[in-house]
């Protein structure tokens, strides 16, 4: 039983980061109906940013998100303005391929610049843990989870309480209606992709003390992001939040009980089942 609670708590903690990844992807999908295959690569860029800020300027990874967030936002906005915006009316397939291409460019540019060596960002607290009620809680995971909570709260406030946030949600709900109401849809798309990139980058920063950092790390997270958003219902922010935590727990608990080798098979089978039978997500209301 202790093992169960131990893996449950680790799952929830890592699930917070997954939620950030999922929310980013779901905002981008919601506003533009584009599935961003470069999402994991954005996370990877965030990891490298954090790594070099730490290495060269000795900025603590959890502090460095103050720099990472705006930088990644600008980077995402740039990608949207000069690339994605140009294919918004193209076939969904071509949009997907464009983001795949951008992802390849990102991961391979990083590889050329910094080689494909695995890097580790070791802080003083990287392997320290707290003991609580007989459970051991990793300090970096706990800090990252706390930051995740704050960011998620700010994000919800932004999306539900500010004019821009509401405009983004309106665009996500009905693009043409939003346009008729005078919302600048292109601008909202730029903000949405910027937000998505910032969230992915932040997730990258938050996991950099506990993960290997290498150019191809993105593809793992791109797939995870898909699973999370589909479980939560594509475009649903609340769904992505819960989906992230759920996947964190499933991975962590499943790794213990199913064996780490097969757990991904289980995750993808669940993913397929949801796509097929509940395309609106686990929480979504079915339309039939």
């Amino acid at each position, binding site marked *: 039983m202790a093992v169960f609670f131990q893996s449950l708590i680790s799952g929830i903690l890592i699930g917070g980061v997954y939620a950030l990844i999922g929310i980013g992807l779901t905002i981008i999908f919601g506003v533009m*109906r584009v*599935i961003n295959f470069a999402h994991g690569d954005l996370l990877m860029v965030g990891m490298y940013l954090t790594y070099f800020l730490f290495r060269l300027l000795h900025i603590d990874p959890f502090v460095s998100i103050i720099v990472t967030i705006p930088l990644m936002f600008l980077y995402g906005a740039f990608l949207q303005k000069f*690339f994605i915006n*140009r*294919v918004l009316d*193209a076939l*969904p*397939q*071509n949009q*997907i*391929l*464009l983001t*795949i*291409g*951008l*992802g*390849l*460019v990102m*991961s*391979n*540019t990083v*590889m*050329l610049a910094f080689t*494909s060596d695995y890097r580790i960002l070791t802080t003083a607290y990287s392997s320290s843990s707290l003991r609580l009620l007989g459970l051991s809680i990793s300090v970096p995971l706990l800090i990252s989870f706390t930051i995740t909570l704050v960011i998620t709260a700010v994000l919800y406030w932004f999306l539900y309480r500010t004019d821009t946030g509401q405009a983004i949600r309106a665009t996500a709900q009905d693009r043409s209606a939003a346009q008729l109401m005078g919302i600048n849809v292109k601008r909202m798309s730029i903000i949405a992709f910027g937000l998505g990139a910032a969230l992915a980058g932040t997730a990258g920063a938050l996991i950099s003390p506990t993960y290997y950092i290498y150019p191809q790390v993105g*593809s793992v997270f791109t*797939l995870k992001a*898909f699973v999370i958003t*589909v479980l939560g219902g594509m475009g649903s922010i609340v769904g992505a939040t819960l989906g992230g935590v759920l996947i964190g727990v499933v991975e962590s608990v499943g790794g213990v009980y199913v064996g780490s*080798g*097969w757990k*991904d*098979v289980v995750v*993808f*089978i669940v*993913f*397929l089942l949801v*796509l*097929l039978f509940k*395309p609106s997500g686990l929480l979504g209301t079915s339309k039939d």
Partner: protein
Amino acid sequence: MRSFMHNMRGASVFPILLTVAGATALFLLPNFVESTYALHIMILIFISVIMGTGWNILGGYTGQYSVGHAAYFGIGAYTTLILMQYHQVAPWYGVWAGVVVAVAIALVVGSICFRLRGPYFVLASIAVAEIFRVTALNLRLTNGAEGILITDIPPFKIGNAVVTDFMSKVPFYYIGLVILIFAIIVTWMVQNSKLGYYFQAIREDQDAAHSLGINLTTYKNAALAISVVFTSMAGSLYGLYVGFIDPSTVLALDLSVHIVMICIIGGIGTIWGPAIGAVILVPFSEALRSNMIAQALIDSGIISENSRIGAFLKDQLSHAHVLIYGILLVIVILYMPDGILGFARKLLAKRRKEAA
């Protein structure tokens, strides 16, 4: 008027003549080319054309963008190699066994996933391929992450006469060429049949196609089955030729993307698009990979080996082939969404208009 008539008739005969001449040249090529490296590149091109042509039937003609075709490439490769290595089944049967297994699995997958459309279908195709990759990583049958290394291929005999012992690259060259021609002919036949019309109708508008009497699931599955025959054959050929397969090469998401890219860059929904894509991508990436381009730049004196750029290129350019893929993909999607073939056709049409 006369020249117009001439053009019209030439238009139908000329491509056939060109194709026959090209095929003949390719058949004779090994007699004149000694370099095994050149043959190696040709075989890799053939494999890419075969899998691209296979994907093109489903993705290009029918509009069902599978980004999980590595699954069928891998299933073909694994079936053939497992049968040969552990059960002494000769590969010329094993290839067909691979086709049967791959098509059977594809039809199950298709019956489940074809109800999804657009981006949802893409995601499902990826999930299916990932399930196969992780399964192959974990099964003893597939030897997990270690993969399968084949020791030697039994000689191919007709009666008692040994046709080939697979000791050189030449037999692989001819097998590849024959499958390739087969794939091109099948594509041509599909394009000029009811199937081709129905596939394209589905690509253009599923609801309209449905209301015109087209059973969507049946025809999508037909496209998938034809597609998977060639993808699986390409996988078997690859496994036999390279002699080693593991989940991270023959079942990888990268491979699925590579298959799509060949078609997109060449031009989807056309007979020759995948061939053009492969002819451009494969030698280019091989040249980069083997550092030929960096060496050529240095040899030609454009860049000094001792300069910083020269040293960097020499060390790093061989890793850049995927980067170039990515850049090509972005350029093609933004500037020539119909691929190089479509782009060339547009240019030609424009020229003709200006001339007229």
